[in-house]
């Protein structure tokens, strides 16, 4: 049996953490203990924020649609209520994109909804 030392495995295990901790501030990217904690926490935030990302974007679209609707003399809630009534099936993402890149088209939708 050849003699096995533990240095190789240990180094690889630590390097995995250091690689994930690249760019962290101060000791969080240099010391193993601090880096481990920081990486664990970073992954928790990443997991959470992959979910909140969907809500955050929806919020942003709503703010933009509201701004565009008000330019056309209508509040957001009136606008969405009108969409449902008329039966237009565009989602908020598409509507907010239209408000920026195709204001004329957006105005037309507002007219239809009124």
């Amino acid at each position, binding site marked *: 049996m050849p003699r096995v030392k533990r240095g190789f495995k240990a180094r690889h295990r630590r390097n995995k953490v250091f690689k994930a901790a690249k760019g962290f501030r101060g000791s969080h990217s240099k010391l193993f203990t601090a880096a481990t904690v920081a990486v664990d926490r970073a992954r928790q935030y990443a997991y959470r924020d992959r979910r909140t990302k969907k809500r955050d974007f929806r919020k*942003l679209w709503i703010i933009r*649609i509201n*701004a565009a609707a008000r*330019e056309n003399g209508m509040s957001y809630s009136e606008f969405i209520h009108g969409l449902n009534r008329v039966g237009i099936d565009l989602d908020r*993402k598409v509507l*907010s*994109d239209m408000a920026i890149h195709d*204001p004329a088209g957006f105005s037309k939708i507002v007219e239809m909804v009124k």
Partner: protein
Amino acid sequence: MKTYVAKEQEIEKKWYLVDAQDMILGRLASQIASRLRGKHKPIFTPHADTGDFVVVINAEKVSLTGNKWDNKIYYHHSGYMGGLKQISAKKLIEKKPDQVLYMAVKRMLPKNSLGRRQLKKLKIYAGSEHPHVAQNPQLLKM
């Protein structure tokens, strides 16, 4: 499709002129704050300054409802023991006529570096004169 993100050089910032005479403080301030942040534009982007410049004249003639001139009190703390200072709205508008509206808007903006940058686009003057004629601010009815 990617959601649009406004870039600093693409944002068109306009100048607006607001007459604060007989306007109710909080209602006026919230509309000004919204303009400064750019929430009235479809390109609003939370991490970029998409707002417009707002020039306010006649800030000393702003109005408060109820007994707030006497009862509304502005507090700040010097950091030393017993250092809690206070001044009523009545006294503040006598001493610094532009501060009442300035404080109201400041406290409605986000408390971070972007908010502080957006506050710099607010120009408040106590009287009916303003030095921003070159920017040709557009009169805005609030």
